[in-house]
């Protein structure tokens, strides 16, 4: 899903060299090792959502709303899975002339069979397209599930049921297309080889160069702005985070917010959930390398150290400021670290990832304590404060830490087959494009969707339901019969 992989530099250059003299290009083959890793990563990302995210969120609400949160997360996974197969994959990962969304050429997974191939980041190293469909499906499923935390404990289930498919369709699929859709290394490599093959034939060369320009233009809006996002800092976290904030503002505060005791009903569940998130996140980040290569190992390393650093920085900062280190602080810090390292996972060096983690732990703590209270909105589970703020720090931090001079991996230029020169200013502008486009598209899109849902079914549970708890009133069940 990301694009510019340093590890394929040698391979790409070799391929260009080997085939420069002839115009006969080998058909890319499916690499079984990469395929095996992607099958594994896919189920790891599912584990993040169910039960990881569900338990993390569920433990943080009052016991009367436990099942409502579990249900909303589980429903989201099932609903988005179906949408993804029907048209989501096609809208996200088909090309053409659209910068903001794909087309319907692969709707109903048309033409995608067990023999179909999907590009990775190396020339001639493909994976099964169906495993790519499923891997990306799990990303599409977790992102709207993250939003649930912002309006937890007061949204009607019917409203959630309608909001989720609309949001996935109008916000997630387009943003994922904008950030991650590109023609792939094989297409670029073929175009580059064609230019070399043209030799001194001016007309053929001009045609080949036009073809290369066309291949490079076949990509999403944010991709073409040069923004890099390894595993979904913009697509997943900023996207869900801003949608959560908009939802919290539109639906309003929970009854008794700021007065009643709204303590988490089981931090034990939340700790289990956060830990499963961490485990599953290796599929998310190292899997986003699409190949079982050194790049995946780098993403794994960064996902270990950034997470640990952020958990420690949140915990120690809280200890210093509030006088006690809290379990909720440590696990919140870990999640913030995972969020921040997501876009940086395959680009930063490990020491850079530690710095990123240390920074994000403290900034998110500051945000969810001081700034959130100053602004007074009720984002129940801090989806904005952790995912959006952490995501922005990660997206901008990636622009800095990718610098090879800082131990970063650099950005691959597939046209030249080399790591591109790093330019701080240009990269930060690119990253800012990614952040701002996502904030605006998701912010505005989400607001419209909430309003539409409000008109059709009403967003908010009635006062009696909210007081009684959504488990009984929406689902006629209790989480705990003891």
């Amino acid at each position: 899903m990301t694009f510019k992989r340093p590890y394929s530099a040698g391979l790409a250059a070799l391929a260009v060299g080997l085939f420069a003299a002839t115009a006969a290009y080998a058909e890319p083959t499916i690499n079984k090792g990469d395929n095996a890793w992607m099958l594994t990563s896919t189920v790891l990302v599912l584990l993040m959502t169910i039960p990881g995210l569900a338990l993390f969120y569920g433990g943080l609400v009052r016991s009367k709303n436990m099942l409502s949160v579990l249900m909303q997360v589980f429903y989201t996974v099932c609903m988005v899975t179906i949408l993804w197969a029907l048209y989501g994959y096609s809208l996200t990962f088909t090309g053409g002339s659209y910068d903001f969304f794909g087309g319907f050429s692969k709707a109903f997974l048309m033409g995608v069979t067990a023999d179909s191939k999907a590009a990775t980041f190396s020339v001639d190293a493909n994976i099964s397209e169906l495993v790519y469909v499923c891997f990306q499906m799990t990303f599409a499923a977790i992102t709207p599930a993250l939003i649930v935390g912002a309006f937890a404990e007061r949204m009607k289930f019917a409203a959630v049921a309608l909001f989720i498919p609309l949001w996935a369709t109008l916000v997630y699929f387009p943003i994922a297309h904008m950030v991650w859709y590109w023609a792939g290394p094989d297409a670029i490599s073929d175009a580059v080889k064609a230019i070399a093959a043209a030799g001194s034939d001016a007309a053929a060369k001009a045609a080949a160069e036009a073809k290369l320009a066309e291949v490079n233009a076949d990509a999403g809006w944010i991709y073409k702005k040069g923004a890099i996002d390894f595993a979904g800092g913009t697509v997943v976290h900023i996207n869900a985070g801003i949608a959560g904030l908009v939802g919290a503002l539109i639906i309003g505060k929970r009854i008794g917010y700021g007065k009643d005791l709204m303590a988490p009903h089981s931090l034990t569940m939340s700790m289990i959930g956060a830990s499963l998130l961490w485990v599953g996140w290796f599929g998310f980040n190292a899997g986003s390398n699409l190949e079982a290569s050194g790049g995946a190992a780098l993403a794994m390393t960064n996902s270990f150290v950034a997470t640990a650093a952020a958990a420690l920085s949140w915990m120690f900062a809280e200890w210093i400021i509030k006088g006690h280190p809290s379990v909720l602080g440590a696990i919140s810090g870990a999640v913030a670290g995972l969020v921040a390292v997501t876009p940086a996972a395959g680009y930063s060096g490990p020491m850079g990832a530690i710095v990123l983690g240390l920074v994000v732990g403290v900034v998110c703590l500051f945000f969810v304590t001081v700034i959130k209270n100053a602004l007074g909105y009720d984002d129940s589970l801090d989806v904005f404060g952790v995912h959006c703020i952490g995501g922005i720090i990660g997206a901008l931090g990636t622009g800095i830490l990718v610098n090879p001079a800082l131990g970063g991996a650099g950005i691959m230029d597939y046209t030249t087959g080399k790591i591109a020169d790093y330019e701080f200013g240009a990269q930060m502008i690119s990253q800012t494009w990614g952040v701002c486009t996502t904030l605006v598209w998701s912010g505005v899109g989400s607001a419209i969707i909430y309003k539409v849902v409000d008109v059709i079914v009403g967003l908010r549970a009635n006062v009696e339901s909210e007081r009684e708890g959504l488990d009984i009133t929406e689902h006629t069940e209790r989480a705990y019969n003891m």
Partner: protein
Amino acid sequence: MKIVMAIIKPFKLEEVRDALTAIGVHGLTVTEVKGYGRQKGHTEIYRGAEYAVSFLPKIKIEVAVASDQVDKTIEAITSAAKTGQIGDGKIFVINLDHAVRIRTGEADAAAL
């Protein structure tokens, strides 16, 4: 007959039970309760949310005894449950008009 009701610190329950058994009290009802007296509550912090929790968990024990046993019972509970710190709890004595053992139908003193 009297009911001696005591609110004690939860971790003192076993000591109180032992002390009551030692003076010949053979039955006891225990309830987990929350409340406050002179002991202050505590603060709970969950990210940015801080809650002053004033109701603390306590154990309420209720024991029915003959009137001449009341002083001994109070003394047993007091000595077992005392730590000397604020929050040790209180003892209330209430008149008991009538008692019946359900299994046998025995009444009053025979039922205790």
